[in-house]
């Protein structure tokens, strides 16, 4: 026991002082802890109870690249407004095929600057897959057969500001391009102000005896509650004055033009609407460099077959449509969404599978709706962390602001709250400043981060497992006489997602799939799609080019399509299925 601890420590020191591929490092022993996410001793140690700044996120991923150079690689796809790198990490086993020959799962996080934990969840996807490649057979199979494109931070500037500057849980959602929110010709001139210097933007309240509309809760004087309308002369003694700040530009309003002021998840082409319909949309779709370079990356990768976007908060697994007027997605695709979404509800307790416009609110120009409506790719947004998770099964009796305090008091020793404290405000006079800090409410407490990242990463991985995989069943050859033969082939998709979604088929997105038969000694006289497995003459004949049949609809999820070719000749031939969003399947055939 003691010895193994020593060995472990020695190995850890070695890992830190030497390159990952140094020969001195002993082979990692297989332990008895196969149920754990990374066994007993991961190759790359990452503390999953923390949030990491922009540089740290990249440093973790770079360590993973160094430790798994064959499997993980990095590219810079563009730069943010403040010139931070937008990085995409590609994860696959190149020995089984180049990344762009496999269906790809895109996972991003942090498109809203304050919704930080998506970044950690993306890193976790990479870490989990790499640690378990060659160790857990399903992971190995997945990394061999699928490509992951991982974009940990789509809004690095917003993240950096949220870490660096005073904020609350919801501010720094935007990017950092100066924007004139109030139309006065000045840009970002009235930001919130951290008047009490606690590093967070909290609340301002003023004691106004008998003239307010709020009172202190009898249960907890830190909690403000509205005084209900009454005829008994009961008035509030307190007035809430909004977020901590000053009227920096002297226009009579406070905090009305903070940094940025737009929403990069309202900027995508499908269903995009201008600012007055959809606040934050910007002057035209993909206006900000962060959004445009990701859209270009997607368009340049037709193998993109699944999209997962990590946000916070509320515990949701969201899918489109984003607005009511769109209608509903095609039935076949809804069935896929429902299957994955319901699995998600199991994997992610306290999360609900929801339709954006119906169950949340209308969103025009969201990124995941673009992935589906524009590119025909099954896509989800997860809203990470639900405050019901604070008390778990007892959440029913513990809701509202008082429960936030109870959690903070009992499990964080009160560290998440800045107590109300007097402050002399230039406009309001003597006021009090206090409230929950920026890391309370929308990100989980540190001890719950690991569970959140694991469950969400595994949901994305489950989605990746559902990407189409085509197999060709053994062909049946029938002699028709006079040297004519019929070759019947069943092409089967083993996974839940079709090779072409109904959306892609209906809108003509990308290229159709192709079923082909090629052989030097073979003449393909006719070919077509069988519509009846028992009656071979029911054949939807190709008008031309029968050796390469086009399929707009592809192969349904866990379904198959059947082809009959009528040929003359002999020799070896190859049957193939080519699709943009599935690996090419081929099968040799020998005709005597």
């Amino acid at each position, binding site marked *: 026991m003691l010895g193994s601890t020593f060995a472990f420590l020695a190995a850890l020191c070695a890992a830190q002082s030497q390159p990952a591929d140094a020969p001195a490092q002993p082979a990692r022993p297989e332990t008895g802890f196969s149920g754990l996410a990374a066994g007993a001793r991961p190759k790359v140690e990452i503390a999953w109870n923390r949030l990491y700044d922009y540089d740290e996120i990249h440093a973790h991923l770079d360590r993973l690249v160094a430790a798994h150079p064959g499997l993980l690689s990095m590219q810079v796809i563009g730069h943010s407004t403040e010139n931070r790198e937008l990085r995409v990490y590609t994860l696959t086993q190149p020995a089984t095929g180049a990344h762009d020959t496999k269906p790809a799962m895109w996972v991003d996080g942090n498109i809203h600057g304050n919704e930080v934990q998506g970044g950690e969840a993306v890193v976790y996807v990479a870490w989990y897959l790499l640690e378990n490649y060659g160790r857990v057979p399903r992971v190995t199979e997945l990394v061999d057969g699928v490509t992951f494109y991982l974009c940990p931070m789509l809004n690095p500037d917003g993240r950096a500001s949220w870490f660096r500057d005073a904020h609350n849980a919801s501010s720094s959602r935007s990017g950092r391009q100066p924007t004139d929110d109030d*139309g006065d010709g000045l840009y970002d001139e009235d930001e919130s102000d951290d008047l009490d210097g606690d590093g967070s933007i909290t609340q301002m309240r003023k004691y106004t005896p008998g003239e307010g509309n709020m009172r202190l809760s009898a249960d907890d004087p830190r909690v403000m509650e509205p005084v209900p309308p009454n005829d008994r002369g009961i008035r509030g003694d307190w007035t809430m004055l909004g977020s901590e700040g000053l009227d920096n530009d002297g226009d009579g309003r406070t905090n009305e033009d903070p940094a940025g002021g737009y929403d990069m998840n309202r900027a995508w*082409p499908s269903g995009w609407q*201008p600012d007055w*319909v959809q606040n934050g949309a910007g*002057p035209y779709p*993909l206006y900000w460099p962060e959004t445009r370079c990701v859209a270009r990356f997607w368009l340049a990768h037709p193998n993109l077959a699944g999209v997962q976007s990590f946000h916070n908060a509320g515990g949701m697994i969201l899918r489109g449509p984003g*607005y009511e007027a769109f209608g509903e997605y095609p039935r076949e695709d809804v069935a896929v969404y429902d299957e994955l979404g319901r699995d998600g509800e199991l994997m992610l307790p306290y999360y609900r599978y929801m339709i954006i416009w119906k169950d949340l609110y209308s969103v025009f120009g969201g990124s995941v709706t673009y992935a589906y409506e524009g590119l025909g790719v099954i896509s989800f947004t997860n809203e990470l962390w639900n405050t019901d998770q604070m008390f778990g099964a007892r959440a029913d009796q513990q809701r509202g602001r008082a429960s936030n305090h109870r959690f903070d008091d009992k499990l964080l020793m009160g560290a998440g709250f800045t107590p109300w404290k007097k402050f002399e405000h230039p406009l309001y006079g003597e006021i009090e400043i206090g409230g929950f800090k920026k890391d309370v409410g929308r990100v989980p407490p540190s001890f719950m981060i690991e569970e959140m990242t694991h469950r969400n990463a595994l949901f994305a991985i489950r989605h990746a497992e559902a990407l189409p995989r085509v197999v060709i069943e053994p062909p049946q050859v029938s002699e028709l006489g006079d040297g004519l033969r019929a070759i019947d082939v069943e092409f089967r998709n083993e996974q839940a997602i079709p090779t072409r979604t109904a959306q892609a088929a209906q809108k003509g997105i990308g290229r159709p799939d192709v079923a082909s038969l090629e052989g030097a000694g073979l003449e393909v006289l006719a070919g077509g799609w069988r519509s009846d497995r028992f009656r071979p003459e029911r054949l939807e004949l190709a008008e031309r080019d029968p050796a*390469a049949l086009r399929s707009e609809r592809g192969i349904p999820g866990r379904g198959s399509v059947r082809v009959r070719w009528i040929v003359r000749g002999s020799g070896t031939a190859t049957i193939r299925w080519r699709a943009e969003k599935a690996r090419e399947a081929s099968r040799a055939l020998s005709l005597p």
Partner: protein
Amino acid sequence: MFTRACVPLSTTLFAGLALAQAPHQTPAQAPAETPAQPAQAADAAPALESLPHAELVARAKALGPAAQWIALGRSRGGRELFALRIAADAARADEQPAILVVANVEGSRPWTSTLALHHAEQLAARAADPQIAAALANTTYYIVPCANPDAHERRFAAVRSEREATGPGLDDDRDGRAGEDPPSDVNGDGQLTLLRVLDPRGEWISDPADERALIKADKNRGESGRWRVWSEGRDLDRDERVAEDDPLDACVNRNFPAEWKEHAPASGAFPTDEPETLALCEALLQRPQIALVVSYGAYDNLVEKPKAVAADARNKRVPAPGVVEADANLLVELGKRYVELTGAKHKGRALEGGEWHTWAYAHCGVWSLAINPWELPLDTPEPKREDAAPAGETGAGEAPTETKPAARADAKKDKREASDDAKRLRWIDAHGGESWRFLPWTAFEHPELGACEIGGFAPFARSEPPEPERAELARKQLEFLTSLAGDLARVRIDEFSARALGAGLYELRGAVANPARLPFTSASAVRMRSLRPARLELELANGAQLVAGERIQLVRELEGSGGRFEARWLVRARSLDDVRLELVTQHAGGDRRAAQERP
């Protein structure tokens, strides 16, 4: 109102009539004289021809400092995109209201680039002309002579064509290959026209009014189609379809965000994916002083009233496409002047979504006028001659020819109106030297289709004005363009007065007014919040204090024709000299006044 409907358009007669027309006069304008312009233009360039992009660039650069060159980027094909900025006083050019003129966004209207260049040259050179001087006195003109040079150049290519697509192509025919069957000049005449082939699947028949024109067979009238019609080209992929998968699909003027049609090949991958589209968007967005856009091309919203919609779509977040009613009514008024000045009668192309001029209005909130300067007229009268059209068709039996006077009365009852193409052909027939505009259907042995015919309107035949009309057309368009300067909103402080209440206390009254015809912001801009409000700021010096009122006020709306905004303040000041009122706008000028004491 003068119409040309019943007069054949001989060029001399046309010029005479045009001069007889009462020219539009703005109050400041001297009576119009016969323009000296034709003589000037004659030695510069022969008669306003369409020009290759390189020549447009050279001519624009030759204007020197009188027209500031503004680089806007490059086209997909690497050609320069540029604007010219013309202002009487370059130092004030960015402070006064501006008009942006954009030509040939669609790419198939190269002559409109010549028109825009003409305007630039005239504005830059003829500052002494009273109307031009009046316009330039308080207005900056930005002119983009050629917004789509790649398509523009097809006017001058070895094979001339009106193809508009310049961006990436898709697999249009869904055969798994993209761009494998482009249009091409199969008969080698240097022009892309149409190809027709007798085919029972065809949807087209010859127009009985003129067998050269094709019309859709009307099954309700018992007509069955005879001709299948394709763009001129091969069937390289042997799918019995001709030129159906062009390697280029995306069109600059379908790639703007307003009413963009997703998944239509011409729309492009996403709005502003085309570099020309993005460059135009940025050109406008970066210049908030631009209050009005004039677009020369295939579209029109002046001859024909645009589709008007209510300002607010109640209970619907997504508004109906169209021009807000209040704005449409103003366009109608501008349109009346346009028609009066130019005599234009032809409408424009139907909107398909993603057009530039729609975006400028609907998403940027600027006034947006679409002008289609010339099209083959539809009003040439039917020749009165009795010689019947030769029966060219065989086998179909439609198009009974009117040879016997007795049969005419019966035939008239069932007679359909001549198609627009047949009317266009009348104009061509009536004008000597214009026969180049229609290429007679000529038998051709097609490598894949076999026997077919190639012919139809020559590229640019429908939109390039005849040489004798061009100078006059350009002069009238310029007259309309310069008249617009007088319509732009100009705000000023109409009143800033003070009443002494004693002990250094003053009651101040301020009023902002817009005497111009156009409102400070369009109804679209109000809805869009896309134009900055006017900022009215009380400036207090030497310890003067605000006692009541808002020191800074933002004014979002101000009607035209005398629209007013009023405000009051109480201040304490030692002297009224310490109190000033400043009015700042981005697109309607500004003002600054000291208070006048009133009793």
